[in-house]
């Protein structure tokens, strides 16, 4: 009898804990959890001074009033960021012309500001035909502030042992009010386009 009670107690508590710990069996990885979390409670993006591939300096808050699709890159990246770069290109090509650069801006921020100086950013911009009026390839002008930004976006960057980095690549959407509202797979442009379509 005591066994039955104890077992039932363990199973009930345990299922409850597992249910809560996976957000109701919806998120099993850190990546899944943060996406769910951001959809539920959008968070403000911290202020950060950026320098883009044309050399001009501006703050992230300059994008207030329009949607921003953002990814994190480093220009030497040979795998994920290429796909992510192509995804951003496809988003650009898929957006209605009147929205591009006015209602919606694209932004790639390097998390390797020591290596990624102006020439590297320019090269990257050329590779994707990114024009500063709709797509800025940028680095943090003050690299000390970068960790706070990565923290907000919950980007974990670890050296891959070959001089590059391993990072959780994704597409981030910031709303006109400066809130990070959604995270999408780095290889799924149609998901981002679909999300933006109903939101002027």
């Amino acid at each position: 009898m005591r066994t039955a009670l104890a077992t039932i107690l363990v199973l009930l508590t345990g299922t409850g804990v597992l249910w809560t710990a996976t957000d109701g069996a919806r998120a099993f990885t850190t990546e899944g959890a943060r996406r769910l979390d951001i959809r539920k409670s959008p968070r403000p993006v911290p202020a950060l001074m950026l320098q883009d591939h044309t050399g001009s300096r501006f703050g992230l808050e300059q994008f207030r009033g329009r949607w921003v699709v953002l990814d994190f890159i480093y220009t030497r990246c040979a795998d994920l960021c290429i796909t992510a770069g192509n995804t951003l290109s496809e988003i650009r090509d898929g957006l209605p012309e009147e929205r591009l650069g006015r209602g919606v801006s694209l932004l790639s921020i390097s998390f390797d500001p020591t290596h990624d100086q102006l020439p590297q950013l320019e090269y990257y911009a050329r590779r994707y035909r990114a024009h500063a009026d709709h797509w800025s390839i940028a680095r943090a002008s003050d690299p000390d502030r970068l960790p706070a930004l990565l923290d907000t976006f919950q980007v974990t960057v670890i050296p891959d042992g070959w001089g590059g980095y391993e990072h959780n690549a994704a597409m981030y959407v910031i709303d006109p009010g400066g809130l990070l509202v959604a995270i999408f797979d780095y290889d799924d442009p149609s998901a981002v386009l679909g999300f933006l379509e109903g939101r002027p």
Partner: protein
Amino acid sequence: MKWMAGGLLLFGILALPPIRHAFEQTMAGHMLLQIPLLVLSGVWIGWGLPAGKRKALQAMNGYGLTGLALVVITALFWMLPRHLDASLEGTAYEIGKFLSLPLLVGIPLQLSWRRLTAIGRGLVWSNLIAMLWVLSWLYLSAPVRVCNNYRIDEQALVGQILLLLGFVIATALTVRAFIPSRPAGVAARPLSPSPDPALRKT
């Protein structure tokens, strides 16, 4: 008492910051060494528990069921990638890991294992194999990382080790299941007269 001391010593060593960091540096070290060793420390502590304490615990552990439920649920919790990440990024989760694996997996496992029926033990083993292979398949085929703190090649390595581990356990289990574990030759000897009526009939 020797077991108790051994278990506590093993736990103490695993908790030393340099050892802890060394194991957590790689995904394989974290999942396949640190976590099993923490469980092992609990098993040893369980072994060394004073008789009175064991009796009190076993009173609510008929057929080892309560213990098995605890083991399965706690193991499931730590099998989720997000909790491995969390234990690397937050102290609370790390402490939780170090306490729950010996207390809620190791000790109950030791207390319950021999109380389970033979079929129950077989079921646990077969499910373990299935789980190892499912995880291995997941790790080998996932195009993205399941843990943000580990590289994708580490993930693939863990996948390969899990595959191999499942294979080794499956082989051992098959051998155990079909070949009686008596010393060679015993079965062939004629049975000596036995007081057991069931045996005398043969």
